[in-house]
Each structure stands twice: as structure tokens, then as C-alpha cells.
């Protein structure tokens, strides 16, 4: 039985203290080496991390950061009232499960050994499928997809024909992304009306930018006979007309300039083709939405959501720093793509 929303809110307030500050994140990115990064991290709530140095250290660290985020999320889900817990589980678990399914399908398609596919999965317990092992052990990627019959992903089987037709995986990946988007919007209904605003803002901002990036990617590629309505089942601040305009635009700059804030600012790096910078900007924007949401209501669901949003962005930034450190990337090149240090 849940101790109630108030308890979860107080707990979230307390757990916020464990999160890394922008200053701490900057210091971590500025460490000279991976050892320095791990050493500095030992002084935070992550404690001393020991990773198996036989394999790729950045992959091992990525797993550690994912586990930490999942622990944090589960600590909230376990305490939250059923509707909020159900929403959070669906919001995060569904997303991670879709990522895992994509990784399984890609792995099977390219004939990667089973242990390697299993190793690449986000360490969560299966959410809407019975077992990942069962899917990984299938004979082929088609067999893996067919094994999804009887799950909420059963409609994916229909995309196999398209996958066959194009001899490509993208029909399956697009179908999975759409399934995930649909599930997130459905799960929003579990939240009380007053609590939907923050999540809606986050989901819509992410979906708008993602839609625009997909539209920008479609520019100049005439080989896919997708209609914009099929490609973008859900649009919000950036309408389907704007996306259509982006697909057909010779110069993307004029389309971006015609968008409303914050999109016309977030998408500016597209002029230079630096798409990764857009991702860090959207993360910063989501970080800001969560922070403002928390300021607007410091005693409700917004605090819980803000804590999880901050945690997830922290995980993403740490994964980026860890990889950058293993590769010896200069600090300024890492910092450019981080969301938290830039959110000050």
C-alpha cells in the first residue's frame, strides 16, 4: 500500500539532494582522465564505482548509470500511489523496453552473438513481454518479431511485410516508436487532470523536436513514399503543415526562423548540421520545464516528475562524459553536448 503522494513528494525533495549539481557535472567533465572522473564521482551519491576493465569501460559505466537511474525510478514507483506509479512505470519502462526490442531486432538482423545482444540490453525486467531471452534466442529477427504475438507489440508482425519489401529494419523501428508514443499518451490518462500539464509539456516538446528532425532528415530523400500524416501520427507545437514545409524546403533556415520559441532557438544548430547539439538543447529545455514545473507546484506530482527528469538527464550526461573520458575527448567538446552544465 502506498504511503500517499505527500510522502513521495517529501521523499523526492530529499532525494534531489543526491543529484549532481551543474557545477559537479562540469567538474566531472573537466577531469583529465577516466580515473580522475571515477575518483571525482566517488565523492558523490554514486560512490566508488569499480568496473571490469577487461571489456569496454564506457559500456560498463553506461550500465552502472542506467542501473542507478532505474533504482531511483523504482524507489519512487514503489512508493507512489497506483495511478502515478502506473504512469511512471509505463512512461519509463515502456520506453526502455522499446529500446531493448529495437536492440534485439537489430542484433538478430545482423547476426550478433546472443550474449552480445543480451549485454546490450538496458537492465530492466521485461515490462510487456514475457522474456527478452526468448526473443534473443529466436532463430531470426523475423522469428523474434513473430514471438511478440499476444503482447501489446503484436501489431509489429504486420510491419514484417514492409521490412521484407525494402529489405530493411526501419519499418519495424518506426512501428515500435509509434507504439511507444501511443502508449505514453495513453498512460497520461492515468494521471489526475491537474498533474498532466508538466508531462504533456515535456512529451510534446520532445515529440515536436523529434518530428522536426525526422522531417529534416527526409529532405532530399525521395525514396520513401511516406505521407507526413503516417510519419507524424502526433504533432503539437510544430504542426503537420510546418513539417511538410520542412520536408520540401530547399533552405531549412527559413522554416526554423518561422517557428515559435523555443523551437526556433533549439533547432538553430541544424543550420550547421550539428544535430547532437539539438539533443542537448532539448534536454536543457526539458530540464527547464521540469524546474519551472517544480517551482510552480513544490508540493505535488511536479516534484516527483522533476526528480525523475533530472535523474534521467543526469544519467545521459554521465554516459556521455564516461565515453568521452575513455576516448580522451577534450572537456570542451564533451561539455558542449551536456545538458546539465549548460542549464545554469
Amino acid at each position, binding site marked *: 500500500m502506498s504511503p500517499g503522494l505527500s510522502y513521495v513528494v517529501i521523499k523526492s525533495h530529499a532525494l534531489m539532494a543526491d543529484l549532481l549539481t551543474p557545477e559537479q557535472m562540469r567538474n566531472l567533465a573537466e577531469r583529465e582522465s577516466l580515473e580522475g572522473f571515477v575518483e571525482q564521482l566517488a565523492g558523490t551519491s554514486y560512490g566508488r564505482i569499480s568496473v571490469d576493465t577487461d571489456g569496454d569501460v564506457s559500456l560498463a559505466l553506461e550500465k552502472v548509470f542506467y542501473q542507478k537511474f532505474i533504482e531511483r525510478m523504482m524507489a519512487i514507483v514503489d512508493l507512489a500511489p497506483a495511478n502515478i506509479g502506473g504512469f511512471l512505470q509505463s512512461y519509463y519502462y515502456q520506453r526502455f523496453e522499446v529500446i531493448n526490442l529495437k536492440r534485439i531486432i537489430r542484433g538478430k*538482423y*545482423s547476426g550478433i552473438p546472443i550474449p552480445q545482444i543480451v549485454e546490450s540490453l538496458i537492465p530492466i525486467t521485461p515490462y510487456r513481454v514475457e522474456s527478452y531471452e526468448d526473443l534473443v534466442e529466436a532463430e531470426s529477427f523475423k522469428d523474434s518479431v513473430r514471438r511478440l504475438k499476444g503482447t501489446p507489440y503484436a501489431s509489429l508482425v504486420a510491419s514484417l511485410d514492409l521490412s521484407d519489401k525494402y529489405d*530493411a529494419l*526501419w519499418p519495424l523501428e518506426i512501428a515500435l516508436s509509434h507504439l511507444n508514443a501511443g502508449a505514453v499518451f495513453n498512460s497520461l490518462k492515468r494521471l489526475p487532470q491537474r498533474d498532466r500539464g508538466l508531462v504533456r509539456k515535456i512529451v510534446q516538446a520532445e515529440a515536436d523536436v523529434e518530428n522536426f528532425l525526422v522531417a529534416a532528415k527526409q529532405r532530399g530523400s525521395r525514396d520513401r513514399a511516406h505521407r507526413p500524416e503516417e510519419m507524424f501520427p502526433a504533432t503539437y507545437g510544430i504542426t503537420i503543415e510546418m513539417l511538410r514545409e520542412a520536408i520540401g524546403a530547399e533552405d531549412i533556415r527559413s522554416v526554423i526562423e518561422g517557428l515559435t520559441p523555443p523551437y526556433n532557438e533549439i533547432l538553430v544548430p541544424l543550420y550547421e548540421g550539428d544535430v547532437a547539439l539539438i539533443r542537448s538543447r532539448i534536454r536543457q529545455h526539458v530540464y527547464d520545464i521540469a524546474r519551472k514545473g517544480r517551482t510552480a507546484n513544490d508540493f505535488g506530482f511536479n516534484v516527483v516528475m522533476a526528480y525523475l527528469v533530472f535523474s534521467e538527464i543526469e544519467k545521459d550526461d554521465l554516459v556521455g562524459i564516461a565515453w568521452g573520458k575513455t576516448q580522451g575527448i577534450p572537456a570542451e567538446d564533451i561539455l558542449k553536448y551536456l545538458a546539465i552544465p549548460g542549464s545554469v
Partner: protein
Amino acid sequence: MEMKRRIGFIERGTEFLKLKRDHLAKELTASIEVLKGRRSLLLENLRGAYRAVTAAYISLGPTEVRSQASSIKAGLELEVLPRAVMGVRYPFIKVEKKPQIAGELDITLSEAAAKVLAILDDILQLAEFEARAERIADELGKTNRKVNALENTIIPSYRQVIKFIEDKLDEESLEELVRMKLIGGALARRRE
């Protein structure tokens, strides 16, 4: 006579080798100019591609990048064929199959992949050009050594031998003339 015929043949060969040397030197100079330009352009493009790949890794995380990269349907397939310029063989790289991406790549990664694919041809062409310039330089060195050996050692030594033989022959014919004159004088005196 045989020696003179031979040295004529060697001199003509030397002239041909000199022509080859000059042609190779011209080819090498042109190649080096092209290489300089192409190399700096390629380095700039490589930096751009590396930045894009780095950004994709930091943005998506290494596991996701690796997973998406695994959806590349076919790897790069090349065939290396021989070609020749002035008898110098160098490798010519023919692209049989370019990598094809089967999955729906994240745009961050697809930008990086596009940048890498765009410079793939440049990398191969530069490799081919560098191998060509290297082989031409090798051949130029060899030709130069041959020309020098012919001009400075073989031809002079042949000339010396010919001169020696000619001197010997001249000497012998002079001796013969003197002998004939002495014999002629003796015979004339006997008739008197």
C-alpha cells in the same frame, strides 16, 4: 664495330630512360601537388566526420550507437586492380559495394554516417593516389640510378674500350705502314 653498334644502342636506351625519367618526374610533381590539396581537404572532412561521430556517441551513448551501427546491412567491399603509367604498376581501388544502412538511424547518427560515407570515396582515392605517387617515386629513383650508371660508368667505360681498341688499331696500322715502307725500301734497294 660490334662495340660501336652496342654503344649506339646503349646511348639510344639512355635517351629513352632520360625521357622516362623526365616524364615520371613531371607525373610525380603533379601528383604531389594534387596530394597536398586533397590531403588537407580530406583531413578537414575527416575532422568534421570525427566530430559528428563523437557528438553521436556523447548524445546517444555507446551501446545505442553500436546497436544502431549493427543495422548496417553490408560492409564495404573493394576490389584492388592493377593499373600502369609508363610501365609503373599501381593499385586501382574499385568499390564493389558500399555499406547500406537497414535500420532507422537516429538523425544524429545518420548525419555522422552520411559524413563518413561522403569521405569514403575521397579516402580510397587518396590511398590510390598515394600508392601511385610512391610507386612513381620508386621507379623515378630506379630510372635515375640507371641513367646515372649508364652516363657516368657504362658509356664512358665502353668509350674507353673503343678508344683503346681504336688507338691499338691505329698503332698497329701505323706499324704496318712503317713495316710496308721498310720492306718497300728494301725491295727497291735490292732491284737497284
